[in-house]
């Protein structure tokens, strides 16, 4: 028995903690586990990957690298599916399970890959309802544990407690998180996972020397980050009520990104790049800016 689980999400959603909860819960069930995230320049909103390996046979755990051929993938943000750099479904085993946190229906996925099992749930809605925040770690970890089919609720509960206490979360918020995890645990059902192929170590590739004009990057196209649509980081969407607005321009000045521009009719938000920090909502002196959950607006 070998489970290779890979978690995809964005910084701040609790992806690393989710992978630790799964690892800890499996460990409490008596399995051998490994869990680790990819450490890089982690920031809120940046794509994050974390891995958990579970086995009952320690001799299969000798490889310690990234999971390239998972049989279980958990995606905490559906906008990552369209990101060619992240490519969250890469290497997924035939008959493997994919969980996606989404409020939309994603049938095009099963149309492209008819050999996978797709499970979806709106975790943000559930976490807002049960925890009051949009941190998904406990729910995602508990869903992952259920989808493996080998972990009981009691171990998940213990795992959640241990992990959250370690990062200093206790009291009421811990209780709320356990309820959130329990709700998530009861909402999904496991199916048998395929056995991942063990990839033997590959050869070391030597890269030949190239002259600096080829190997040193050079940016000639200035001011081009606009084509990176950071609007998909957003959970809440600010909306300006132009009838109430008095055109003071504070939202334009205070927007860190500079996505609010002043037109002849009044301020306008460029939603393609708005990250949804809601500073404009908080600072508007006449309360002309409101916000809605992103899903309610589309």
């Amino acid at each position, binding site marked *: 028995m070998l489970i290779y689980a890979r978690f995809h999400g964005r910084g701040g959603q609790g992806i690393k903690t989710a992978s630790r909860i799964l690892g800890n819960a499996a460990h409490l069930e008596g399995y051998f586990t490994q869990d680790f995230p990819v450490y890089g320049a982690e920031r809120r909103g*940046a794509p994050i990957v974390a891995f958990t390996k579970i086995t009952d046979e320690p001799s299969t755990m000798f490889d310690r690298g990234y999971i390239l051929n998972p049989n279980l993938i958990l995606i905490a943000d559906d906008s990552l599916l369209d990101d060619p750099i992240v490519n969250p479904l890469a290497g997924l085993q035939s008959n493997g399970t994919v969980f996606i946190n989404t409020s939309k229906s994603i049938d095009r996925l099963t149309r492209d890959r008819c050999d996978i099992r797709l499970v979806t749930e709106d975790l943000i809605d559930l976490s807002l309802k049960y925890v009051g925040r949009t941190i998904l770690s406990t729910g995602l970890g508990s869903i992952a544990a259920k989808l493996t089919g080998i972990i009981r609720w009691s171990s998940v509960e213990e795992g959640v407690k241990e992990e959250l206490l370690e990062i200093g979360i206790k009291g009421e918020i811990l209780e709320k998180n356990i309820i959130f995890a329990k709700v998530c645990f009861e909402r999904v059902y496991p199916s048998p996972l395929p056995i991942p192929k063990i990839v033997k170590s590959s050869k070391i590739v030597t890269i030949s020397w190239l002259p600096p004009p080829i190997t040193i990057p050079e940016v000639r196209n200035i001011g081009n980050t606009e084509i*990176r649509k950071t609007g998909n980081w957003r959970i809440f969407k600010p909306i300006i009520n132009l009838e109430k607005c008095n055109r003071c321009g504070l939202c334009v000045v205070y927007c*860190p990104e*500079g996505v609010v521009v002043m037109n002849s009719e009044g301020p306008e938000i460029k939603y393609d790049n708005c990250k949804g920090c*809601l500073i404009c909502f908080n600072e508007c002196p006449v309360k002309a800016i409101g916000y809605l959950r992103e899903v309610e607006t589309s």
Partner: protein
Amino acid sequence: MAQTRYRSLKDLLGEEYVVPGTPLCSGCGALLTFRLFHKALGKKVVWVNAAGCITLMIVYPFSPLKSSWMYTAMGCAPAGAQGIRDALDILIEKGEVDPEEDLKVVVVTGDGAANDIGLQSASGAIHRRLDFYYLCYDNEAFGNTGFQFSPSTPYGSKTMTSLPTPLIPEGHKGRKKDLFEIWRAHNPPYLATVSPSHPMDMMRKIEKAERFKGPKLFISISPCPPGWGYDTMKTIRMARLAVETGVWPLKEAVHGEVRHTFIPRSLKPLEEYLKEQERFKHLFYPLRREDIIGRMQREVEEYWRKVYSTEVLEEKKD
């Protein structure tokens, strides 16, 4: 300041030189300072950056800037600025670069590079009277790597490397370095602290600095939502509270002479600023640490007592 370009907020709505889409955190205070700073300086700027959060703005092949950018190691941004300034001066003198195309050289670093790793190279550059701007965005820790303490972290703050324990209940035990006074000891022509919550004050200070040749230094408070632990929408609120509680005085020093540009009539209690942040939560929960909060409050009050007794009284005499 009779003739200022910045009379009302309407004058801040001009052209943007930092376009959106950067990979920085949502609600980043440093990015807001940087954007306003660039707006005040205009397009003809070359930025010299030492490793920090802002470095992530430019990840190949994307750049949000309409100006130039050079990236250096943490210790040597002012040295990089010296090289660029000298090269520009020589090329202009030789006639190879049109004086119209001269660029302002601006160093932008975080508080770690300014207070600690790059302190000596900045000291050297100010000593050599290098004609440059220096913007330090101060989020009071090493934010980019996950919020470890820096010499700029205030007493009582929780960071990843100064967690509060029963033995050390206050978290960080060190005191915040007074970078303003360290730099002022070098006697630069212009030196100021700014806050993104007071944009008019910031823009007027940058405008004023343009008159001086030599090092022009700025320190900006930059609230950091993930590190300080508050909701992203409160970035401006945090910066404003820091100014109004007196923990972040807005001041300038022209040839070493200090003047406060914003003197609160009465200071708000420091508690208002502290209790909204996760990094000070251990001072309130599970036990309210009156001794630690009181010590922090006393330090702020002591600072302002001196200010009130010198500057405010002098103004009244006039």
